[in-house]
C-alpha cells in the first residue's frame, strides 16, 4: 500500500513518500550528528569503542591479507590478541563502530575517535527510523509512517541510546531488520528471502536478544499458512515461499553468525558454550525500582513493564498500548479459523508487531535475568511499539472523522493537528531533560520529580555530564583540580579522561581517592547502597555546584578543602618540573635558600622525585 490520500495520482503519492522519507530520515541523521557532543559518554562507550577499534583493525588487516592469499590472520594467537578487550558479545555492532572510526577518524579525520565510533551506532538508529517509516507507510498508510517514525525519534531515552557506543540500538536495528525483510520477502523479489536468512545471522551476531525473533516469525508463518488454507489464492504469500524463507533462515543464519564473529573461528565449540554460559549466568547489576535496590535477587518481572510505563512519553504510551490491545483482537480463535472479511494486512502486521513487542520485553522480564539500565535492555521493543502507536493513531483519526463527519479537507488538516498535539508533549519533555535524557520520565510518573520520589533511578549508565565539563572548564581560579567521584569513581575515572584526550575538558582535572581530593562529586544515584552513607558524610561540606533538572539534583560538587584557597597558590607538580629542567632547578634553589636560612638545619634537602630518579639512574 502506497497511498497518501485515497484516489490521488500515483506520482503525487510517490513524491510525498520520497519527500517525507527524506525529510524524516535525513532530519534524524542531522539531529543525531548535531547532538552527539551533548550526549554524555557512558561506561559502555569506554568499553565497546576500543573493542570496536580493535576488531575493525583486525578485519582490515585480515581482509587485506586474505585478498593477497595470506590467511595468517585466521590464527588462534592473532584472534586472541585482537579480541582482548571484549569477546563476551558478538561483533557486528563493535565492528560497525570500528568501521566508522576508520572512515571518519583515520581516513577523513573529521571526528575524534569516540564520536567517529559513535557514528556507527547513529547509522543503526537512522536505519531503524527508515524501516519504521517504510513499514508504517507501506503497510498501514502515510499517517502511520510519519507518526511512528517521529514518535520513535521523540522517545527521549532511545534518542540518547542512539548515540551510545554499545549494542542496544544496534540489536534494535538488526532485530527490526529481520522483521522488515520477513515482510519484504512475503511477496517481493527472491533476494529478500535470502536477506531474511542473512539478516537473522547478522542480528544473532549483534546481541543475544536477536535470536528470540524466531518465535514471532514462526507464529507469523503459521498464521500465514492458515491463511493459505482459508483464503486460497487471495492469501498474501504461498506456502512454498514460507518454506523457502524458513530454509533461508535455517541454513544461512548460523554461517553468517560465525563469519561475523572471528572470536568463534578457533575453539568454536568451547567458545560458543562459554558465550551461552556467560549470558545464562549474567552477574547482577544494581537497579533502583520503586524505592528498593535490586541486585541479587534480580528485580521482579514487572520492573521492565513499569519502567517502560514511566519512561515512554505518555501519549505515545497510550497510543502504543491501544494499538497493542487492538492488535490482540486478531488472536480470537474464531478470527484465526475463518479470517472473516478476507485479507487484512494492517490487522495481520499489527498482530506481528504486537507479538514482537511483547517478546522483546518479555525475554528480559520473565526469565530470571538481571534487569538494569532503565529501558536499555529492551530497546528492540520500541520500534514495534511506535508502529502500534501509529496504528492506533490512524484508527483514532478515522473514528474522529466519522464522529465529527469531517470532509476531505478537514481530514487533511486533522492529521497534522493531531500529530502536533500528540507529539508536542513528548518534545517538551525531551527538551526539559536535554541533554541528560536518561533522566526522562513521562507525565504519568509526574516527570522527573515524580519518578524520583516514586523511587525510580534518576540516572544510570555512569553517564558523563556535559554540564560537568562546562563547569570545570569555566573555573579558571583553580589549577590542578583533584576530584573524587562517588559513589562509582571506578567508571567515571575511565570515561571523563576521554574528554581530555579529545580536548574538550581541561587537562588538569584528575581523579584521586576522597582523602586526597580537593573536590568531591556526588552523583545522587540511590541504587548504590553506599549512597546514603556518602551523602551523610559529605553533605555538610561546602557545596559549590549542583546540577539539577526539573529541580531534581543529579550531582553535587563539594569543596572538601576550601581552606586551600587561602593558602599560597600551589607549586607546579614535581613531574611537570621534571619535564622542564629549568623550572626543576629553580624550585630546588628556592628550597635550598629557604633551608639555609634555618639555623642549625643539618638535614638533607628534600629531594623531588625527579632528582631521586636521576640518582637512581646514576647508580
Amino acid at each position: 500500500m502506497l497511498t497518501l490520500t485515497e484516489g490521488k495520482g500515483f506520482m503525487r503519492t510517490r513524491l510525498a513518500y520520497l519527500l517525507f522519507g527524506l525529510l524524516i530520515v535525513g532530519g534524524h541523521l542531522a539531529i543525531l550528528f548535531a547532538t552527539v557532543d551533548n550526549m554524555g559518554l557512558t561506561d559502555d562507550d569506554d568499553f565497546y569503542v576500543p573493542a570496536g577499534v580493535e576488531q575493525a583493525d583486525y578485519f582490515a588487516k585480515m581482509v587485506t591479507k586474505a585478498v593477497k592469499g595470506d590467511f595468517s590472520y585466521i590464527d588462534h594467537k592473532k584472534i586472541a590478541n585482537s579480541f582482548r578487550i571484549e569477546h563476551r558479545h558478538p561483533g557486528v555492532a563493535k565492528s560497525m563502530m570500528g568501521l566508522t572510526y576508520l572512515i571518519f577518524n583515520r581516513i577523513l579525520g573529521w571526528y575524534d575517535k569516540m564520536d567517529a565510533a559513535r557514528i556507527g551506532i547513529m547509522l543503526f538508529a537512522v536505519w531503524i527510523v527508515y524501516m519504521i517509516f517504510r513499514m508504517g507507510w507501506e503497510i498501514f498508510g502515510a499517517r502511520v509512517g510519519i507518526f511512528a517514525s517521529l514518535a520513535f525519534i521523540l522517545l527521549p531515552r532511545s534518542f540518547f541510546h542512539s548515540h551510545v557506543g554499545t549494542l542496544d540500538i544496534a540489536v534494535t536495528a538488526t532485530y527490526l531488520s529481520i522483521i522488515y525483510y520477513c515482510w519484504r520477502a512475503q511477496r517481493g523479489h527472491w533476494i529478500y528471502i535470502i536477506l531474511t536468512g542473512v539478516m537473522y545471522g547478522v542480528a544473532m551476531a549483534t546481541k543475544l536478544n536477536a535470536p528470540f525473533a524466531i518465535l514471532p516469525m514462526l507464529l507469523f508463518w503459521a498464521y500465514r499458512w492458515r491463511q493459505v488454507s482459508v483464503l486460497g489464492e487471495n492469501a498474501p504469500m504461498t506456502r512454498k515461499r514460507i518454506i523457502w524463507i524458513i530454509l533461508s533462515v535455517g541454513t544461512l543464519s548460523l554461517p553468517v553468525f560465525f563469519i561475523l564473529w572471528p572470536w568463534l573461528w578457533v575453539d568454536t565449540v568451547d567458545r560458543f558454550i562459554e558465550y551461552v554460559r556467560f549470558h545464562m549466568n549474567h552477574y547482577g547489576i544494581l537497579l533502583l525500582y520503586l524505592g528498593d535496590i535490586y541486585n541479587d535477587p534480580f528485580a521482579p518481572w514487572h520492573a521492565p513493564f513499569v519502567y517502560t510505563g514511566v519512561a515512554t512519553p505518555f501519549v505515545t504510551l497510550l497510543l502504543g498500548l491501544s494499538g497493542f490491545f487492538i492488535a490482540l483482537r486478531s488472536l480470537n480463535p474464531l478470527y484465526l479459523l475463518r479470517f472473516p472479511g478476507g485479507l487484512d494486512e494492517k490487522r495481520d502486521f499489527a498482530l506481528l508487531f504486537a507479538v514482537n513487542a511483547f517478546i522483546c520485553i518479555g525475554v528480559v522480564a520473565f526469565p530470571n535475568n538481571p534487569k538494569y539500565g532503565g529501558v536499555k535492555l529492551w530497546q528492540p521493543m520500541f520500534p514495534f511499539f511506535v508502529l502500534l502507536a501509529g496504528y492506533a493513531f490512524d484508527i483514532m483519526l478515522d473514528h474522529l472523522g466519522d464522529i465529527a463527519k469531517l470532509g476531505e479537507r478537514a481530514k487533511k488538516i486533522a492529521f497534522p493537528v493531531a500529530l502536533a498535539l500528540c507529539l508536542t508533549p513528548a518534545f517538551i519533555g525531551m527538551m526539559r531533560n536535554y541533554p541528560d535524557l536518561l533522566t526522562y520520565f513521562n507525565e504519568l510518573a509526574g516527570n522527573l520529580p515524580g519518578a524520583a520520589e516514586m523511587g525510580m533511578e534518576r540516572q544510570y549508565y555512569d553517564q558523563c555530564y556535559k554540564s560537568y565539563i562546562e563547569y570545570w572548564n569555566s573555573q579558571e581560579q583553580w589549577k590542578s583540580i583533584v576530584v573524587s567521584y562517588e559513589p562509582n569513581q571506578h567508571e567515571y575515572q575511565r570515561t571523563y579522561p576521554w574528554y581530555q584526550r579529545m580536548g574538550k575538558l581541561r587537562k588538569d582535572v584528575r581523579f584521586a581517592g576522597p582523602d586526597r581530593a580537593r573536590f568531591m562529586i556526588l552523583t545522587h544515584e540511590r541504587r548504590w547502597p553506599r549512597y546514603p552513607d556518602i551523602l551523610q558524610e559529605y553533605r555538610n561540606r561546602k557545596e559549590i555546584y549542583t546540577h539539577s533538572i526539573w529541580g531534581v539534583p543529579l550531582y553535587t560538587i563539594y569543596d572538601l578543602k576550601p581552606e586551600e584557597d587561602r593558602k599560597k597558590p600551589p607549586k607546579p607538580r614535581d613531574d611537570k618540573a621534571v619535564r622542564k629542567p629549568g623550572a626543576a632547578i629553580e624550585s630546588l634553589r628556592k628550597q635550598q635558600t629557604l633551608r639555609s636560612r634555618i639555623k642549625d638545619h643539618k638535614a638533607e634537602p628534600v629531594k623531588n622525585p625527579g632528582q631521586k630518579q636521576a640518582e637512581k639512574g646514576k647508580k
Partner: protein
Amino acid sequence: MKYKYILPVMIAAGVLFAFVRVLQPVPEPITEETWDAVEKVMSKEAWASEPVIVHPVWEHSAFQRFRNHILTMGKPTSKGIFAYPRVWMVIARGAGNTGYLEETHKLTYDQKIGEVRLQRWEKPEVENLVFDFFSNVRQAKVRLFDKKGKTRACNNYRNLHWVCPVRDWNKVGQSTVQVKGEWQSAVWQHPLAQWTTEARFENVPMDAFIKGQYALADAAINKLPRGSKVSFRVLVNDKVVGDFSTANKKGWKDFQIDTSEFKGIRATVLFQTSTSRDAMRHFCWRASVMSDDKKSSEKNKTADEKADSAQPSGEVK
C-alpha cells in the same frame, strides 16, 4: 458507533493531561524560614543521631540541614533505618507515599510547620532505649591488638569509618550491607587475622541489658561458604559479658546480654572481632543499651541530664 468514541476521547484526555503535566513548573525549594522552624522544633524534641527522612527525595535544600542527624532522602533504601526506635519525617509538597513507616512504627507527633509537615514515628520499645552504638560509632575509639600485646590505633576517620593501619579493608564504621537479600545499616567490623579489632565506647550509660544483632554480609557467604568463624565478644568494663561465634549462615543473629550488674553507672563497652583466616569475613553488628522498664529509662534520663558535657553526643537525653 459508540465504541468509536472511546479511542478519540481517551487520547484527547491523554493529550490534555500530558500538556498540563509536562508544563508544570520547577518546584520551589522549602524556604529557609521553614527549615529554621523545623530545626528549632527538632532541637527540642529529637535526640541526636536520630534518622530524619525527607520527602520528596529531591528536596535539595535539606542536604545541609539536620547536621546531627542521619539524613535519609526519600524512602530509605537501607532497611536498617527501620530498625531505629524513633524516626523523624519531613513531608513537603511533591511527596509521594510516606505511609511505609506504619508497618514498623507508630505516629506519635505530627505538626504543620510552614509549608511542611513534621512527623515523629516511634517503636514501642523506644521507652527503653538508653544508648545506641551504631549512631555513636564516630565516638568510638578503634584499635587493633595482638596476643603479644602489640597495639595499633585506627584513628583515621574516613567515609564514616575508622580505617585501621594494617590493611585498608580492615575498618570499623557505619556501613550498608546486604543481609539475607536486604540492604541494612550496621557497624562494619571486618576482623583481621592474628589481630583483634576493637571498638571502644566510653562513658556509656548502662542499664538492664545490651540488645543487638550480628551477621556476615551475604557476599561473604556467597563467595566463601566455608570461611573461618568470626569470634565476636562484648566486654563491659573489661569483663566479658558476651562471646559469640558466627556460622556461615545468612541472616541476622540476635543477642541479648544481661548487664543489670552495671545498671545506673557509666561504663566502657568494647566490641571485639577476631578470626583465624580473614578472607571474606564481612562481619557487621548493631546494638543498643536497653532498660527493662519505662521507669528505669526515665531514671536514666534524669541522671544523664545531670551528667557532665563529656557524654557521647548521640546519647538519649
